[in-house]
């Protein structure tokens, strides 16, 4: 692998990692505030992509970039107010089950409205083509745009959480909801806003991820389990941990896909030849690109064995 390919792959990995962070940050915020693991989080990501596709066919991509996340956030607020709040009194498991059932329903609704095949949600013309070319490998403009949006969002979250009144109330509600309520703040409303905000972030990720990848009914399931891995690896409820884990897993998966190297080759390079009669041949034959899908889960298992709190987590539970 030469240096230019390395640099481009790194950039691709970082852009994917940032996309993962847009998803996992909302999930983490909702989890640390309400104790709810939003199983349907990736479904809101999918809704974002489909809404953006629909809006962009009517009024174009740029309005969709703003409108779709707002719509997804509104859906999230309704879900919190009329669904989650009702089951809250029965504890966290019914809440988790509620969002689990919701993810079922959203996938089916999406199929009812937009059909089972992928929809032609495309990158807008002005963002097509390469941003720059390093020797022979080029970096797409849209990837750069994704990174820009993700970084802007990152700064925006940070500013909202640390520099505004509502951000301070949210931070306080994370740890001391009763005290915040006693001080006269409407904590259920804060919960609703957090849930809406988290789902809107997922929606935004869907808007910019949907056309970078494919907008289809299975997109929620594809990314859903990865963001759970991110949240556990980073440490449950830690935003910084989610950030590190997102970038780690994003770059890891992107690099694994481009590396065509197997255990068999590794052994050959050190002078060992494994023949097909060896029982381990089937395992060693697999290239890194082939095992890429299971790498995040292997990382999850390793982290759980050696650091159960997660990379930057504070609580073990």
């Amino acid at each position, binding site marked *: 692998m030469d240096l230019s390919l390395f640099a481009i792959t790194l950039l691709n990995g970082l852009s994917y990692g940032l996309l993962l962070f847009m998803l996992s940050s909302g999930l983490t915020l909702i989890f640390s505030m309400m104790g709810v693991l939003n199983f349907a989080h990736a479904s809101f990501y999918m809704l974002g992509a489909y809404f953006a596709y629909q809006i962009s066919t009517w009024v174009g991509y740029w309005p969709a970039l703003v409108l779709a996340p707002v719509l997804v956030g509104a859906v999230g607020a309704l879900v919190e107010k009329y669904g989650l709040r009702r089951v809250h009194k029965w504890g966290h498991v019914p809440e988790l089950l509620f969002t689990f059932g919701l993810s079922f329903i959203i996938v089916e609704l999406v199929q*009812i409205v937009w059909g089972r095949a992928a929809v032609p949600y495309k990158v807008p013309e002005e963002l097509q083509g390469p941003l720059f070319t390093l020797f022979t490998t080029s970096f797409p403009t849209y990837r750069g745009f994704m990174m820009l949006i993700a970084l802007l969002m990152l700064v925006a979250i940070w500013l909202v959480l640390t520099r505004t009144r509502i951000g301070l109330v949210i931070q306080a509600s994370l740890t001391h909801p009763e005290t915040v309520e006693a001080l006269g703040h409407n904590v259920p409303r804060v919960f609703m806003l957090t849930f809406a905000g988290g789902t809107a972030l997922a929606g935004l990720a869907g808007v910019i991820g949907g056309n970078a990848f494919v907008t289809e009914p299975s997109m929620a399931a594809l990314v859903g389990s990865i963001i759970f891995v991110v949240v556990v690896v980073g440490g449950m409820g830690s935003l910084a941990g989610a950030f590190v884990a997102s970038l780690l897993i994003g770059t890891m998966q992107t690099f694994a896909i481009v590396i065509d190297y197997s255990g068999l080759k590794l052994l050959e390079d050190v002078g060992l030849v494994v023949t097909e009669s060896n029982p381990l041949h089937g395992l060693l034959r697999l290239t890194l690109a082939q095992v890429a899908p299971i790498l995040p889960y292997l990382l999850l298992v390793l982290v759980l064995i050696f650091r159960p709190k997660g990379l930057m987590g504070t609580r073990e539970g």
Partner: protein
Amino acid sequence: MSTNAAPAGREIRFEPIDVGRWFVWGFTALVFLVLPLIFRSGFAITLLSQMGILIVFALSYNMIFGQGGMLSFGHAVYSGLGAFFAIHAMNWISAGTLPLPISLLPLVGGVFGALFGVLFGYVTTKKAGTPFAMITLGIGEMVFAASLMFPGFFGGEGGISGNRVVGEPFLGITYGPAIQVYYLIATWCFVSMVAMFAFSHTPLGRISNAVRDNPERAEFLGYDTQRVRYLVLIVSAFFAGISGGLAAINFEIVTAENVSAARSGGVLLAAFIGGAMFFFGPIIGSVIFVLFAIALSEWTKAWQFYLGVFFVVMVMYAPGGVASLILMNLRVMKYRLFGRMRDAYTGVLLSGAVLLVGLILLVEMSYHLTLNFATGSRTKIFGFGFDGAQPEFWVLAVGTTIGGALAFEAMRRRFASDWGAVQEQIEDQVQREQRA
């Protein structure tokens, strides 16, 4: 249980319960025996066989979920891997390299299910609660991804197929006809049910309840909660593997779908809808789930949507599942107060039916428009012709839905207040009886 009861008095009370238990199990066995004689069609036998398989799976799942408080999103790993080993064993039996009767094949699935329980459970049971749920999801995805990676063992996209009709017939049993397979499944299902019920009464089964309800206190009593979770998971994985072995015999094919997240989610739905807090809940849930997944899917492509809505409605309004609904109504009947609920029930059921019809019209018309566009906009719902391209049909559907929803909400409120009043009266009566 009152604390001042003498120990001697308690021991005597066991006897009539045991008689009741013999009666219940005897009746269950009879039901298994008689059902295929009542429902004779091939389709019914298919349904019954699949119900038997799912009952074992759902009960094994409930061992960790309802009884042990561990919400898992990856239980299909154990049943699926058990099924893969069982189908390979079946092929070895066909090849003559493994001297084992087909009837004992589920045991192969069970043993390998338990082995993977030992392996994966070590990682997953380090945590409880929400982290446990997420880790099981991750492990499930890992196994699913790995299953497509090793085509030698998992057969890739096509899966591994086998043939259950091998060897000499024993007493005329070849497992060729579906009815023989049904009785094999029924036998294994019954034995597993009894075994799992017995397990829930062992000290380990009991302490797993304690770990579910109050892990801190269980730890102070000197129990290692992680170890309890681990052991229960292994036992549960064993029974999941048995259900996998049964599935391998029934379908004669095992694919990656057997270890998929959809399968894990399905067993969770079945256990919860039936009622996770009761031993017999998952049995009811399995019957309902199979009716949805196989019977309803014959009628409509939107069955998963209906199942999802049904599940969410249960989570929101009846977290104890169908089993709790049955038990609560039995209690009302026992205190002879059901008559007072009759009007409320009629109202709720009638308005609910109207709402349901409206929703079904909407869903079916939309589904037909998006998915079967090539066949035109006309479709048949409830035997009547509907045309999704004509606005009047949409007006009808939306009107029925809104009208049904308004009526249902009004009736629901009335039902809730009546129900509350009746429950209060029962509580009063119970307290009076206790004082007397």
